[in-house]
Structure formats: C-alpha cells, structure tokens
C-alpha cells in the first residue's frame, strides 16, 4: 500500500504541472484583468496601464509564469492582487465551511440513498421501485438554486424554523452550526442522493442475480443477511467510486449552494476570484482542487483494497 501511495504522489506532480499551465494560460487569454477592477469604473486607459505595470502584468507571460511557479515549488502560492492577503490564508480560511457542507451533504446522501437504492433493487419492477426512480430523476433534474430558494422560503422565511444564511462553525457552537447546515446540506445532497440511489440500485441488481447470492438464498439465509453481508459489500466498488468522486465534486462545486445560502466557502472564493480576475487566487485554488481530486482518487483506491481482497495494484 505504501508503494501505491508513493506512486500516486509522484504521478500527481505532472498532473499538477499540467493544471498549472492550463489555468495560467486560460486566465491570461480571457478578457478583463484585475487592473481594470482596481482602477474602477472611472478609470482612464493610463490609470489601468499604470496599475498593470505595478502588478507586473505587463511582463512577458513566461516571466510571470516562472515567477509564480517558482513560488509554488517552495510552497508559496502568492498573494491576492486585490486584498494583499496570502492565497494560502484565503483558501484555508474558507475551507472549513465548504468541508463541513460537503461532508454533511455526503453523510446525508449515504444515509438516505444507499438504503433507498437497496430497497428499490429488492423490489425491482414494482411500484415502489418506480417511485424511488421517479424521486431519483426529479432530484437529479432540479437545479440546486431552485431547491435552495424553495427550502429557504418554506423553512426559514415562512415557518422560521431554520436560519436563512451564513455559516457558524460547529466547533464554536455545535447546535447553531448544525442549524445553519441543514438547508444547504439538503439542497446539495438532493442531486447526489439521486445519483447514488441509481448506482446502488443498478449495482445491487447485478449482484443479486449472481450465483453466490442464489447459493446464499438456497442455504436459507434471511433476506437482510443476504443483503448486508453478501450483496452490498460485493456491489460497493461502484458506489464508493461515485461517493468518492461526489466528495471531490462537492468540494469544488458548491458554488451555487454557497451563493444561495451565503456561505463563505471555497466555492464563493473561487467565483469571486474569477470575476475579479484575481489571478494568484484562481491559480492557487485550481491547484488545490487538482490536489483534492488526486487525493480522493488515492483514498478510493485504498478503499477498494480494503473492501475487495481480489483487487491488487
């Protein structure tokens, strides 16, 4: 396993470098620049040019890239051109909110979606199965912002049961923190619930039709034991893959939910930095996301090894 980890970490280096080059190039090719944002609405061309020069944006692209990547190698992701704060500080300040949101959404998803998918598989081709599938399609089709605003209007504004917005750390105030997480977690979880329900159902259906399940049934094992001890572990690989990638997608893709519920997380930081053309922050975030994907893929592979002894790398 140690060999696997070392190999994966080494393989991540060229991936990160490619990400760095692509992100750097795309940002420089897109219209707009941070100097225009700083210079403001009443700026003259002269004022924008002066700011570009002060920021080093008039330097050749290769010089700018070399300067940035040199810092990255030494662990310095640079400084926001707008707020002057270190990029690492900005990212780590926002990480907790996004991680808590993503984790609560994924826990909620697993608790609801895996049993629901299993239930549908066991009642294959019945009305129950069709209802679960209908829920799954609806959940996948509803945009997060629609779900978010509906939940907000009902549970916060209308019935005043939960807060509308904001993030309170569960480490500072557990109860308030959890109350703030309920609506955004449900919003975020709905899409993944739909996905994981479907994957669980189809994966289980495949396993339930296999010989070892028939044998287990023939030996008189109860249905629950067959499901939990035999069928589910054998159908876990695709489910774990989807859950793992789901976590990565949640961390990098919570922009809409964070905006609707005004949660100051990584998603908001990303969109804000892109709109303001805050190059160092966007570049730092993209490297961070690439790292998350690499790390989660590694964890998924380790999970495969633990769950299915037949798998070897």
């Amino acid at each position, binding site marked *: 396993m140690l060999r696997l980890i070392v190999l994966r970490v080494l393989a991540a280096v060229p991936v990160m470098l490619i990400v760095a080059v692509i992100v750097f190039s795309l940002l420089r090719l*897109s*219209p*707009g*620049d*941070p*100097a*225009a*944002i*700083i*210079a*403001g*609405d*009443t*700026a*003259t*061309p*002269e004022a*924008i040019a*002066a*700011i570009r020069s*002060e920021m080093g944006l008039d330097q050749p692209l290769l010089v700018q890239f070399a300067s940035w990547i040199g810092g990255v190698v030494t662990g310095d992701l640079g400084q*926001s051109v*707008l*707020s*002057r*704060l270190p990029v690492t500080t*900005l990212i780590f*300040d*926002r990480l907790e909110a996004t991680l808590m949101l993503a984790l609560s959404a994924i826990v909620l998803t697993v608790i609801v979606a895996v049993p629901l998918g299993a239930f549908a598989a066991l009642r294959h081709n019945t009305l129950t199965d069709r209802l679960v599938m209908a829920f799954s399609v609806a959940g996948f089709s509803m945009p997060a912002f629609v779900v978010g*605003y509906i939940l*907000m*209007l009902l549970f*916060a*504004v209308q019935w*005043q049961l939960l*807060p*509308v*917005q*904001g993030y309170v750390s569960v480490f500072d105030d557990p109860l308030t923190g959890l109350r703030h997480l309920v609506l955004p977690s449900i919003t975020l979880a709905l899409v993944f619930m739909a996905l994981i329900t479907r994957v669980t159902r189809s994966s289980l259906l495949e396993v339930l039709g296999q010989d070892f399940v028939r044998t287990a049934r023939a030996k008189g094992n109860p249905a629950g034991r067959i499901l939990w001890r035999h069928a589910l572990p054998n159908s876990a690989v695709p489910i774990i893959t989807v859950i793992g990638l789901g976590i990565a997608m949640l961390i990098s893709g919570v922009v809409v939910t964070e*905006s*609707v*519920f*005004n949660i*100051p997380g990584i998603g*908001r*930081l990303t*969109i*804000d*930095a892109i*709109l*303001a*053309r*805050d190059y160092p922050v966007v570049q730092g975030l993209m490297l961070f996301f690439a790292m998350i994907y690499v790390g989660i893929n590694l964890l998924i592979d380790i999970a495969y090894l633990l769950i299915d002894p037949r798998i070897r790398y």
Partner: protein
Amino acid sequence: MNMNRRQALIMSASAMLMAATGRSAYAQTETGDAVIRFAPHAALRVLDPVATPAYITRNHSYLVYDTLYSLDSSFTPQPQMIGSHEVTDDGLEWTFILRDGLAFHDGAPVTAADVVPSITRWWQKDVVGLRLKEVTETLEAVDDKTFMFRLKEPFGAMIEAMARPSSRPLFVMPKRIADLDPSTMLEEVVGSGPYKFLADEFRPGASWAYARNEDYIPRDEPADGLAGGKVPRAARIEVIWFPSPDTAISALINNELDIIESVSPDGRSRFEGTDVKLVARASPTASTVRFNWSQAPFDDVRMRRAVQLVVSQIDYMDIVVGDPSAYETCPAYFGCGTPLETDAGYVEGSLDNVEEARALVAEAGYDGTPITIITPGDIASFSALAPMTQQVLEAIGIPSKIETMEWSAFLERRTRTTLPSEGGWNLAHAVFDLIDLISPLGNPNFDARGLDGYTGFVDDPETEALKSRYQAASTDDERFAIVEEMQERAYDQVFYIPLGTYAQYTALRPELSDFENAPIHVVYGLDKA
C-alpha cells in the same frame, strides 16, 4: 443659574476629568453594546482608498478614517478634522489647524506631520487632487496641529477638494503608512475614524467587521449628511456581502440582518406586509449614454446631436425603472437638488424629433456601418439600457449590434480606443451615484482630456479651460456662472446624454435608530434598540 458650592465643585471636577481624558460627554453617553449586521452593495476586496475609487472601499474608509472636511446634507463643505482655517486675501496661503483630541487607532495623536503625506499620497491619484498639486508651491507642517499650503495661483476650490466625497476622498492616515508610494497598495488599515477595522475577521469578498473606537471624539454638531458628529453608537458592525439579493432580503425579513444598503425599485415588493422600513437613498443612481469620440461615426458632433435629439429621459426611466415614484428626469449635469443645479443648455430629446435627427445623420455622411454597443451582462442597472439605446438608434436609421460581456471585461474594453472591429466600441453606458457628479472638477463626464481621459475620450480644451477658471474662482456666484457655461458647452458638444435618475432604497429593521440618510452610506451612527 443658581449653584451651590458643592455643585460648582462637582461641575469643575467633571470638566477637569473630561479635559484630562480627552473625551466629550457626547461620545460617552451615546454609545451602546449593539451589533449591527449590514449588507453592503458590493464585496470589499481592496483596502486602499487611494488605490481604487471603488465605492465599497470608499464606504469602508468612511468608517475607519476621518476626513479634513465633509459635505453636509445640502452638499456644503463643513470642517471635520479641521478646527479652523485662514486664507490670505490674495488666496495664495492657506493655513489649517487641526481640532483637539484626534488620535489614530494605534493610540498615536494625529498631527500635521501625518496630514501632509496623506494629502501628497492622495493628490497623486485623485483628479481634483492633481489640480491642487499642480498649483501648490509648498505644503508643510508648521507645528503639530498646523499645516500650510503656499500656492502658485489661487485655488478657490480648496475646501471643495478636501471635502470631496467621491470617488477618492482625502482620508488621513499615519505618516508611516501615508509615506508609502501611492502605487504600493496598503495592507495595513489604521485610521482615526469612529470604527476600527478588525483585520483578523476580513474575508475578502465575503465578510468583514469593525469595533467601535472607544477613544473617538466626535464633533459636537449633530450628524448631517457626511458632516457633523460621527458618533459610533454600536459596539460592533458586521458587514456581510450577499451575492444573491434575494437571500439578503430573506435574511433581513428573518431578522438575521439589520440593514441592506441598496434594494432596487423592483425589490421593494418583497417587503410588503413586513415591518421592514424602506428609505429612498439620498444619492440616486444616474444612468448615461456615452459615445466614443475617438472613432467614427461619433467623432462627428452631428451624429452625437442626432442621438441627443431623440433620447428621452422619461422613455428610458419608464423602461429601466417603471415606477414613476422611483425616478425623476433631470437636466442638470451636476445633479438635481444640488447647489449647482441648472438647466442651462438643456436639450430635451424625444422621438418627435426623428426627422430632424435623420437629417443630421444624413448631413454627417454616415456610411451605415453598424455601430457596436458594449454592455455588461452581470450588472442589473445596465441590463435594460443597451436594448433601449438600440431601439432609439434604429429609429433614426443607425443599425447597431450589442456585445455583452461580464463586468471586468467591460471595464477594460471601455478604455480601448481601437476600431470596434479590433476590439473597440462605439457606444456604451455608464451608471453613477449622483454624488460622483456634483463637482465640476471631479465629474468624470467633464473629463475632456481626449485619449488620456475617462472613457468616451471627450476632447474639448475649452472645457478644461473652464475648469481652470472654476478652480481659481473665489465666489460662489462666479463659480455658478462658470458651471452654467460648462453645462451649455457639454450639451452643445454632447459629451454624453443623461438618462434621468432613480432611487435605490435602503431597507432597515424597525429596531434600528439614528439612521443618517447621507449620500454615501455611512453606518457609523446607527444604533439598535
């Protein structure tokens, strides 16, 4: 008043204590422990008020820093950090004395040695400051509380420049910070204003907070616009930026917020049936059409006049705002309801003038090349302007295409002077807070320096000469006469076309008190029951 010996002793002791601590009774008795939660119009990202004219940076700075002068509600400059000033009869020497009790947030007293570099850092970036710099021979600190300008020529607009609220007000900083090159963006926020910035709580683009400056000594006068006593009543101000206006409104209704700075006329309906108060902001929004003078066809004044003849403010306001109670037409280039309001030179546009406009277009020899209108797609106040202008142009036989982009790309594109086919533009819109327009020296629409000037690149040396006369004028009457000349010239040459002004609304929880509806949203005086 009769007073016995004991009462006299108590009063004397109180006065001595007050003098010793440097605190006014006003400051001590008006403060509470409330926390105000405030949703601003934009996200704070840049902290240096000299580096950027962004409104949000300016508004943040009004909480943290103090100004030498400020405008009251009638747009008249009033002393703020200044105790008194003197000017010689020839208008060439100005001496200013700071008022007592000024101190920075780090405890150091504010001295003239801090004010001088604050001015010299500011005047390298601000358009009016640049004019003051050009006429200044020397600026020096005479003693701890006194500083003096010696000018090469009279500058009657001295106090106006120091009180100028937009877009780069003259804020006073400690010398060690103000000494930094204006090209170097400030990272440290230390002012002498009513609130202290809490750097540890700054989440750029998301939230930030302030704590009351317990040592702040407000002026004795009541708050009035941006002037008067800035009494920091609440213990803490938490500012939360909402990318979704709907979420902000829901949060206010749900009592998770105390105040929203800016609600559009459309947004008002969400508050029906709630106890939230709505107040029309003192500085309305002013939309404009801007031509690119550096490119055909709008390098020809006849083409600009043709458009001016058919642009009707009321038509635009009906489309952009809808509700007549929320907008007004305004012929005054320096704002309606301001001391410089005038209708001199006003040309009222209407579609009744289509034939006259078409004749002007023909006379200009316009070749029918479609013109390029650029517009930001992500800013609500711009959304209806470009389609409306396209219709107006079509009415007089000018075909056009609209190119939509996001805000930062729009800002950058609008400064280009190349042909539209090479990434330039012909027509764009600009939207201002009225407070931006009240100064003849600072109004960006009167920047007539051609390619070096504000977008549109108005090139009119006559206007620049009028501005020089304005800055030297010593009486209000003289200045007003020059303003009328400036406006007549602007209408004649069609610098831009004003499209009317409309209100944005501030939404407040009923528990809030002491709201000062200043042209710039200042929240330092707010308190909560």
